[in-house]
């Protein structure tokens, strides 16, 4: 069996926290003992709410920041053992797409310059072929190559995200981490970019790590999903299975909170309060302070990620009743599906 594209073993990363006067107030363990494996050509989603550590995890995976401990293997190779030069060469294999297409493109670079930069950096094509390659990449993401001489401010949010994707593809990466890549986009434009990402993943055989808070988007494109809460993974498994049979009370609450499932779900399904401060997380299971099922053991021991069909870190998962079935509105039914089929997607960009 070949090594997975990406493997994380017990990765820990903490950040010091200081008060307004610069005095140390301790540390936030943003990622606290995470192990994950991402097979080649698959899409793994990391979901969770603000402050759960999902963005830190994405940056660790690409080695944009260093872990305090643990191992990160890229195609079986520990990136920490590489020399700076070897790591630089490896960089072309892995890329990051950010949430905000307005902040991720340099306003002083034309589209062509932005997309050509990684080509040049990694010596991917001779200078003479650069322009052709940029044109190819732009049409690959659904933009007309004539737009290459324009500046970022001339484009809409959706178009900018296409440019950012073209730039990420330029070095021919095998692994892409997308940190909320469609969250800033309007729904209709978001659908265009999701369809594009799915095509690219399939056609180029990319391995994709999607960092997202949007469970609909995750369900739509991820093969596997890892749910994070305060720096730890609480549940991980095949997306369809985790969504239809969530085992961890936090995953259940997260799914129940997604709007569009009817008001009938009642206040009982809602979590109370906010997540506790990551500076001083609860002992044992970090979710226990908001968990309706918490018992003494939950405060005393950290629950292991135990495999009952798929992995979940809950002491009580074997005793909990199965998750209540969710029903999503499907009011429009067949008529709506047939009408929506008229919105065929021609991949012409905007």
């Amino acid at each position: 069996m070949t090594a997975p594209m990406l493997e994380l073993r017990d990765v820990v990363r903490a950040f010091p926290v200081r008060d307004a006067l610069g005095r140390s107030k301790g540390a936030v363990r943003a990622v606290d003992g995470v192990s994950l494996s991402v097979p080649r050509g698959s899409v793994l989603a990391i979901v969770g709410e603000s402050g759960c550590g999902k963005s830190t995890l994405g940056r660790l995976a690409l080695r944009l920041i260093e872990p305090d401990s643990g191992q990160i293997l890229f195609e079986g190779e520990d990136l920490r053992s590489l020399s700076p030069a070897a790591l630089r060469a490896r960089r072309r294999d892995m890329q990051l797409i950010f949430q905000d297409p307005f902040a991720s493109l340099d306003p002083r670079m034309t589209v062509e310059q932005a997309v050509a930069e990684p080509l040049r950096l990694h010596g991917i094509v001779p200078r003479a072929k650069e322009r052709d390659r940029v044109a190819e990449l732009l049409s690959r993401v659904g933009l007309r190559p004539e737009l290459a001489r324009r500046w970022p401010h001339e484009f809409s949010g959706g178009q900018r995200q296409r440019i950012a994707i073209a730039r990420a593809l330029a070095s021919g990466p095998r692994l892409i981490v997308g940190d909320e890549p469609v969250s800033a986009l309007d729904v209709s434009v978001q659908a265009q970019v999701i369809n594009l990402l799915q095509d690219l993943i399939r056609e180029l055989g990319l391995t994709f790590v999607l960092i997202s808070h949007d469970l609909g988007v995750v369900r739509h494109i991820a093969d596997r999903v890892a749910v994070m809460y305060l720096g730890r993974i609480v549940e991980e498994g095949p997306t369809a299975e985790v969504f239809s049979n969530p085992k961890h009370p936090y995953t259940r609450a997260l799914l129940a909170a997604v709007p569009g499932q009817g008001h009938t779900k009642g206040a009982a399904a809602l979590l109370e309060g906010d997540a506790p401060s990551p500076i001083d997380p609860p002992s044992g299971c970090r979710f226990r302070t908001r968990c309706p099922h918490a018992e003494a053991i939950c405060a005393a021991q950290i629950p292991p990620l135990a495999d009952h069909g798929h992995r979940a870190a809950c002491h009580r998962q074997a005793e909990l009743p199965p998750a209540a079935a969710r029903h999503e509105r499907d009011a429009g039914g067949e008529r709506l599906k047939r009408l929506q089929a008229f919105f065929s997607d021609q991949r012409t960009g905007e």
Partner: protein
Amino acid sequence: MADNVLELRDVTVSFPTDRGLLRPVDGISFAVAPGRTTAVVGESGCGKSVTALAIMGLLPGGGRIGGSIRLAGREVSTLTPEEWRGKRGGEMAMVFQEPMTSLNPAFTAGEQVAEALRIHQKLDPKAAFDRAVEMLARVRIPDAARRARQYPHQLSGGMRQRVMIAMALACKPRLLIADEPTTALDVTVQAQILALIDELKRETGTAVVLITHDLGVVADHADDVVVMYAGRVAERAPAEQLFATPQHPYTIGLLGAAPKLEGGAARLASIEGTVPDLMHPPPGCRFAARCPFAVAKCREEAPPLGEVLPGHHVACWREPLDTLLENAA
């Protein structure tokens, strides 16, 4: 329906700009009854937030209102800034997306809620503060008496939004406008806040205008829906009916573009293209350039908003689209 709390009739909003007159809202009409939630839904630039600001008399520099906006039967679009100030916080109140920017960082949560009570209900400072603490407890801020003495930066995002709601509802307004009230919040907190608005609406009979881009939120919390596109109303209907039998192509496309929690569709319905430049809006239907059903007439002449079923209005020349399905079958 003489008892509507809010009635907009053929409302336009225009701003003078260097390039000419910009009209982000161009002839919209809808009404909101007491104790009901009307969702105004659409994507960036559709005019939904400008509509909210127009109703509140908060349009930024040079914005002009045309048409009629009536609050409890009284025309408000012609009020002076002073008169409008007298209504805000009293008869009408608003909750914004970003509570951090709409709360004053220099005053405690309790003082900010108390201020509205002092001004509009003429309570003395002590009574106003006590009542503010009650309001904070009512929006389920734990340990309200202590929290009332804290400043906004000491509160979480969800708690700040609760303070905003307490402020907005302190004087029992007839109308509450909530502009993307939960967009900046995590999903579990979003669910709490929306449930809270529903509950307070039921108790007080306040009419709610919920401005949102999220069709899931609309489905769960709205009684009536106004779908806006590029400054106009594309479709207006009772919520259940809108989701059961959407009529406008834009509504239909939007419903298909949102990824579903239950998975299913291999590919999302994709509305190609982008919204038109409102400095130079097209002469016909504003959605025509992105509409798979458009014919020549759609590009030439703007469709009127017509009632196709009781209470269900749609602005589309191609309505009913169902005949296209029959022809295809």
